[in-house]
């Protein structure tokens, strides 16, 4: 969240392209863009793009247009026995009565629709998109730093960097020369498809590139939110318990690739590799598994090859 901005809703999402342009997304979806003078004082006024107002239009009286997807009609089942008539598909029940409105609507449907829109964008741009997920500290940013450096001579790269607060990781990654946009989720513990969409408009990734999305460090929440990515890569370091995958099955079960990271530390630990592998197999039998150490470089080449193959498969090059 922007410390200098008046918006105090803790669930605000901010997007920072590293050039001082800054977009806030309020909880109700209102978008507010402004620029900060880089390196300026902590406290400064800013103009909010265009409309100036932080008007929050809340549901209620706003637009009542609703799309009923195919089979979703408003079936009304009335608890009481008194029959009454309906005008249109909207029921107007007598004040003393109650009306049951059947929705049968999946809660994640909206995110999935927005993920579909991302997928269409990725297809149009011929992007190969990787969603990197793990607990905090498993080594996502370090691996990305190294990966960007290795890939850049061969493939264009771009990064959407998700964290609750700070642009530290984005700043680290920009040193590789790759375009990076930071998405701060505030209290939000995961990225959602619409945050990625908004990040994309600032990132403007080059056609044919490999786009990395570093999700917020968390093994629970990001698992449920499709971002439209081509591959889900879950990192799991040897300093974590061997049974992490079984403990966090939602995250691991849809992984396309599991990376066992920090293998340079194995000699100093009592980490049972066989147990780790069987834990992965138990929840994600179809996932590929690679072991690597960003520090020593062991296994990094296989990961880079995996990315190049993904890029060839998705982009068709």
């Amino acid at each position, binding site marked *: 969240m922007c410390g200098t901005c008046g918006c105090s809703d803790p*669930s605000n999402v901010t997007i920072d392209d590293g050039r001082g342009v800054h977009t806030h997304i309020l909880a109700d979806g209102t978008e507010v863009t402004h620029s900060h003078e880089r390196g300026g004082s902590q406290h400064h006024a800013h103009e909010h793009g265009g409309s100036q107002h932080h008007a929050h239009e809340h*549901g*209620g009286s706003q637009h009542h247009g609703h799309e009923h997807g195919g089979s979703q009609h408003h079936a009304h089942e009335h608890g009481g026995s008194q029959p009454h008539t309906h005008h249109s598909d*909207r029921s107007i029940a007598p004040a003393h009565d109650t*009306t049951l*409105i059947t*929705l049968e609507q999946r*809660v994640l449907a909206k995110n999935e629709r927005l993920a579909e829109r991302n997928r269409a964008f990725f297809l149009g741009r011929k992007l190969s998109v990787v969603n990197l997920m793990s607990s905090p500290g498993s080594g996502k940013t370090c691996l990305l730093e190294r990966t960007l450096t290795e890939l850049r001579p061969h493939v264009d790269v771009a990064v959407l960097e998700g964290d609750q607060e700070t642009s530290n990781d984005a700043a680290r990654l920009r040193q590789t020369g790759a375009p990076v946009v930071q998405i701060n989720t505030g209290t939000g513990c995961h990225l959602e498809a619409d945050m990625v969409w908004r990040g994309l408009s600032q990132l403007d990734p080059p056609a044919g590139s490999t786009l990395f999305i570093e999700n917020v460090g968390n093994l*629970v*929440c990001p698992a449920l939110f499709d971002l439209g990515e081509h591959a889900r890569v879950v990192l799991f370091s040897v300093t974590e318990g061997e049974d992490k995958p079984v403990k966090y099955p939602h995250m691991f079960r849809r992984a396309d690739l599991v990376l066992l990271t920090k293998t340079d530390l194995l000699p100093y630990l009592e980490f049972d590799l066989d147990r780790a592998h069987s834990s992965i197999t138990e929840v994600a039998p179809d996932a590929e598994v690679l072991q690597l150490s960003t520090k020593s470089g062991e296994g990094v080449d296989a990961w880079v090859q995996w990315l190049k193959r993904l890029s060839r498969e998705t982009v068709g090059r």
Partner: protein
Amino acid sequence: MHELSLTQSIVATCERHAEGQPVKRVMLKVGRLAGVELDALRFCFGVCSEQTLLREATLEIEEIPGLGECQQCHQRVDMDRLIAVCPCEKRARLRLVAGDEFMIQAIEV
């Protein structure tokens, strides 16, 4: 806690369908393997429904137990946690038949 953003989405959807009328009940269907904590969901619902048409609404959650079906032996397996492989000899993949639902069934206005 992803339950917060999920609950915000539930409240927004219910408000849209309530069309200005106060909501008395919200009925959800949540599978035990959906990756959603019911206590967190209830807590967030209390917070998110304040100052909305749902502020008086009671939240009713129908829980759906996890059920898998083996792709080889076709037996049905109760799943109290997400497992991918059938306990049978073939150790074949289990297909999730039920338990990952997360739906707004209905609202009462």
